């Protein structure tokens, strides 16, 4: 079984069929909010070696552990500066609606207008934008499963989980085979 640190997630955009299976799998593993967005290809954290998101976070809420970039929810203020820093657009947001409890009446989040009317008009609920990102399926790794859910579920092989040596050798084999077949068919004079 591969250890957590050795693998990287590889995305083959030309293989993506846009089925959204990775989004569904991610949602199930992470309790409802997907850390993946399928545009033309799955977009999610690449776990950079020099991560800009860590650099910009003033709360130090993002940290690198075992080669994985993790967001610490307790420290995060949902300010969203990491969203601007990420070159891949891999940091996701989810808008949730939260009920305002009566004891929160005088809370600063209550709109100014309501306070002007002597506290008579209170919104019953407010919307909060939460920031979240891929955690490389830490929980699955702790449970002894090697591959993250998205790589395990991807039907077309667009998301792969390999270590770098394995990935580069398979890339070489792939190129070799394509060239070999093209060469053979050319020699037989059947190619157009």
């Amino acid at each position, binding site marked *: 079984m591969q250890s957590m640190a050795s693998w990287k997630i590889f995305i083959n955009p030309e293989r993506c069929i846009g089925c959204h299976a990775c989004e569904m799998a991610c949602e199930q593993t992470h309790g409802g909010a997907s850390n993946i967005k399928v545009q033309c290809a799955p977009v999610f954290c690449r776990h950079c070696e020099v991560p800009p998101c860590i650099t910009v976070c003033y709360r130090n809420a993002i940290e690198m552990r075992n080669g994985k970039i993790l967001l610490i929810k307790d420290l995060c203020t949902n300010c969203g500066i990491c969203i601007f820093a990420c070159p891949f657009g891999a940091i996701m947001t989810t808008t949730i609606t939260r009920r305002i409890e009566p004891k929160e009446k005088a809370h600063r989040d209550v709109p100014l207008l309501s306070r002007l009317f002597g506290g008579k008009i209170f919104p019953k609920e407010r919307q909060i934008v939460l920031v979240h990102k891929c955690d490389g399926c830490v929980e699955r790794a702790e449970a002894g499963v090697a591959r993250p859910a998205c790589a395990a579920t991807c039907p077309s092989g667009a998301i792969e989980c390999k270590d770098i040596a394995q990935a580069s050798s398979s890339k070489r084999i792939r190129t070799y*085979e394509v060239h*070999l077949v093209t060469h053979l068919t050319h020699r037989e004079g059947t190619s157009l």
Partner: protein
Amino acid sequence: MMEKKNNKVSVICPYCGAGCRFELIVENGKAIGIDYEPDHPVALGALCPKGNSAVELLNHPERLTFPIMRERNGKTRRITWDEALQFVANKLRQIREDFGPDAVGFLASAKVSNEENYLFQKLARLFGSPHVDHCARLCHSPSIVALSRALGSGAMTNPISDLENSRCILIIGSNFSENHPIVSRWVLNAKDRGAFIIAVDPRKTPTTEIAHIHLMIRPGTDGILLNAIMAQILREGLANYDFIASRTEGFEHLKDKLRQIDIIKAAKQVGVPVGDIVITARKYATSPSSAIVYCMGITQHRYGTDYAASCANMALLCGHIGRSGAGIFPLRGQNNVQGASDMGALAEFLPGYVRTDDVEKRQNVAKLWGCDDLPSGGLSVTEIIGAILDGKIKALFVMGENPIVSDPCSAETEKALSMLDLLVVQDIFMTETANFAHVVLPAAMWAEKSGSYTNTERRVQWSPKALNPPNEAKSDLWIIGNLGKLLGLWEIPPQPEDILREINLAIPFYGGITPERIATSKEGLIWPCLDENHPGTSILYSEKFHRENGRATFVTSEVDFEASISHEPFSLITGRVAVHYNSGSITRKLPSLLRYTPNLELTIHPSDASELGIKDGSTVLVKTAKGTVETVAKVSSSVRQGSVFMPFHFPETNRLTPKDLDPIARIPSFKDAKCRLLRKDK
């Protein structure tokens, strides 16, 4: 097993025919999650979005949990199982006495296990009714007929994973990237190894994006195209004459027919460049191993059987069959549609594809079941609806099907179902069809019962029981078994293992697929598996064909395909999308899937749209001879000019489709619909 607090049970995916396996995590008798099985041969543990929604489906709040009886005034009330089964049995007996056994129709299901289908068709036939059929009629009945006539057996010839070894893949009328997503993995692997991929489809789909060349044909011209490709192969002398001479018969007749074809004229009719046809012919014929992947784009036509036969002809012409990477891949749509067909849940076949008009073999089956003879001459799904309208069929027993959405011309189906004296529906949700039922019986889902399932590559796999059905819902086997007992057909309701043992005796190619062997094996066994020690056969016809003389035959169609070209303004193409499943009775209830495709949309080409003044999002009326439907337009160049696309997961679509049947396989010509469009002004 059930008492353990948290355990993983390996079950078969309930959706398409690929037969993926996954582990269901069960805690305190409730499904809480899934895990993947990277060592499973079909998909290496991959699951599409539908498979990932399994837990949501099992815990769905709208599940049927107790039997329901509809009173004369239309009100429903909860009844007990005893009451429900007794009522159904009495009513069935009474109808048999009054109108004869022919007056009862039975619809089996491609969603339930082999054992349940076997017992269901046995119940129908012992009851005396020949009318037992299921929805394989609506997808691959032409393949069964055409391929068994040409090759001897109507199933996929190679496993799905064997596509990886192909050097040329011809995809015709299949959108597997959306409907069987895991197939795309093997096709992409083949592409990475240098295979040439050709897609034939009237639409641009994720599947055609994989292909090197895409032949965007005019809808319904598949037959002409296949003939043109074969004519070109012959003309260039690329046919495999050794193979034709040693392993086939009937070639001369086909040759004479193909000689008359002018491919330039054909290319014009089909609407693709002549060069593409030539490239396809050369690539397919000259590659060391070529595969044909086809699906409902071939079968759901007026001449579906002839089109499917053309696919077989093409493989035989080039000898691309019976080897690794070379074969015919008709992809089946439901997790047990192959099994249900094998079990004889089809009007013209008894278990093991014994024709009901073959008196001698039929009586052998009858002997096994302990009676003298069995009825023959059954009606197909669509013909049953017609017979109800004619007043010939008075009662219908539906197991896990939703004919109102899946059958063509829904208005007629609805009218027919409301005319019945007795409609029993056995399902997991209150479907559109169940709304018409006199008695609705709550059934268990796949993970709530044990049984074997046969996937599209003929792999028979055992799916064990992972959890108990909710409330009073019962497994289909329990329901059929107890109903049979009340009808006096057998004394004890059988267990799945007992039935599989009977299947081993009744169907020769299931002979070695015993419960002991498959229950312990995750990979299952691939039929033909003739005896206890047989390892199963993954590639068919490597030595001989399953016909009497061991040779395949070219089935030459006498139909003039050109006559079927119509010049009505729009061809209506119906099809599927990635996140929905067949009649949508399951997937339209799951919010996590529904959000991706929430509504019915009509895809129309920008030029057509501007001509009619239709914009993206405007409401349009779609009119055919069968009905009118209001829908929202989506302007996109993914369809050809002159054709429009609608997914059939929504009840509206099949209000429009025609009821013409293929003369041989009796499949309705879903994909031949012609329509007119009107902008609806607000």
